[in-house]
């Protein structure tokens, strides 16, 4: 084996030290930066309210105070639930988050469509994307209904959508 000169040994030592510092700094830094990818969503159900009075065929916005699923605890976020009652007795609890760029869509009675003001996305009454840039239908909130003591139908939603957008 060839004898190391002092110069070579010092060069290698410097490189080793710098490499070690690089590894020590990258492990926590990369882990910290990537950690949101592995966060579990906090799941919780909230009551939206009674839906008996909502007319069939007229999408009606209700506002729910939805707890955030990620990040440190903050006050619940106001979110819109569009309740759409179908003539056949079915019911949709559409989110109003546009699948294009996540702006807030609203029901436009004149157009007979959900309209996104940001880039002009259009959805029909069932939430299907029918015009403009949106790539997929409006998702629904994960929801369930129950009957309270007074016999009213109460809508509850979980703080997540049934499809990822």
């Amino acid at each position, binding site marked *: 084996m060839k004898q190391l000169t002092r110069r070579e040994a010092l060069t290698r030592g410097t490189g080793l030290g710098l490499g070690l510092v690089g590894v020590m700094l990258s492990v926590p830094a990369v882990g910290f*930066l*990537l950690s*949101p*990818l592995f*966060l579990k*969503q906090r799941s919780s159900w909230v009551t939206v309210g009674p839906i008996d009075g909502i007319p069939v065929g007229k999408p009606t*916005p209700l*506002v729910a105070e939805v707890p*955030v*699923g*990620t*990040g*440190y605890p*903050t*006050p619940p*976020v*106001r*979110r*819109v639930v569009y309740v759409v009652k179908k003539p056949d007795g079915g019911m949709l609890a559409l989110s*109003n988050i546009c699948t*294009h*760029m*996540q*702006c*807030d869509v*609203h029901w436009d009675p004149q157009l007979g469509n959900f309209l996104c*003001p*940001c*880039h*002009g996305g259009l959805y029909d009454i069932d939430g299907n994307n029918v015009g*403009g*840039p*949106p*790539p*997929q239908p409006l998702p629904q909130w994960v929801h369930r209904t129950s009957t309270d003591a007074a016999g009213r139908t109460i809508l509850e939603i979980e703080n997540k959508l049934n499809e*990822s957008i």
Partner: protein
Amino acid sequence: MIISRWFTRPFKSRLRSGADWFEDRTGATELLHKGLYEAVPKKGGWAYALGSATLALILLQLFSGIFLLLDYVPSVSEAFNSLDYLRTSDGFGAWVRGLHLWGAYTLIFVIGLHMLRTFLSASYKRPRELNWVSGAVLFFLVLGLAITGAMLPWDQAAYWTTTVVTNIPHYIPFIGDGIRTLWRGGDFVGPITLTRTFAIHIWVLPFLLFSLIGAHLYLLRRHGEFGAWVNYDTDPDSDEEKQIGERIRRAEPPYPTKRIERRYAAPRETVPFFPNQLFKDVLLSTLLIAVIFVMGLISGAPLDGAADPATLNYVPTPEWFFLPLDQFLVVAPQNPLIAIGVFGVLGIGAALMLFLPFIDRSHERRPLRRPEVIIPALFMVFTVIFFAVLGINRLYNL
């Protein structure tokens, strides 16, 4: 002993020997002289003042930004309130916000003119390729600062800007959703989104910006402020021009030795930077800062209502400098097309701009003699303006 003797001398002598001592230890005057009396081109001084104006406006942003930091709180529950307080309760708060906003508008406008000037005069050609590349990266950093700054007030405009901008990575195949999650600190815009954007706006981008400005200025001094065709209107084969070539070859710093490049290494006529160029620099910067000063006072910076994710009648509109990009999102429907459109076309456009000096390698500098780069560039500028007009039309009809 030496100090006590110094005090016995007359005042003027004390001052002079004090200054000599300082100069001996620091070399400050020498440095100042080197900076002030550098030879700069006699022609084109007003156009060159755009570069120093860009620097002045960036420093103004740093200045007004520090004042905003004294009050602003980067938290979803406090950000809007802190700026609302600044607006209503601090006599100068609205003005300082106005300075920062109008400073940003003016900076983007002036940096665009600076790039246009450099492009038209072909100053990006050898040996100044990296001046252009560093400048183009600086331009993108300034755009990044502008868009992250627009997200911070956490009013309606900021909230929806944040939502749309942080959703753009979603359309990058495979890794896009991951990037969106990392930026937002979750699947949806939330408290972490604001602190991350704040950190990017306050530390990450300015750190990169000022490091690159250092490199940009170093390269400017290394190669000289020459290179534009306006400085060289003579025949390179004339005797006079050959003499200039000889002079340049002996000059510091060592300029290129190829004859064709020598011609563009130093202009025919030069003047000292001070006071000839500095006067133009200061005048243009003063004019621009005066505009910002006045617009910041009379127009200020808007603050909508507090962010409300459950809004049904708010119409989000992008800042004017992002209108062409926003319009791009409108005309690129359906998922794969968005990916191809936004990232493909814009990516190619950005790459062409960034690597322009390596694409246009001819020695020709006169704009009319190099239509092969001027015409595609004008086409790109026209496209951007066209998309802006489409966007204005769309927002106007909304």
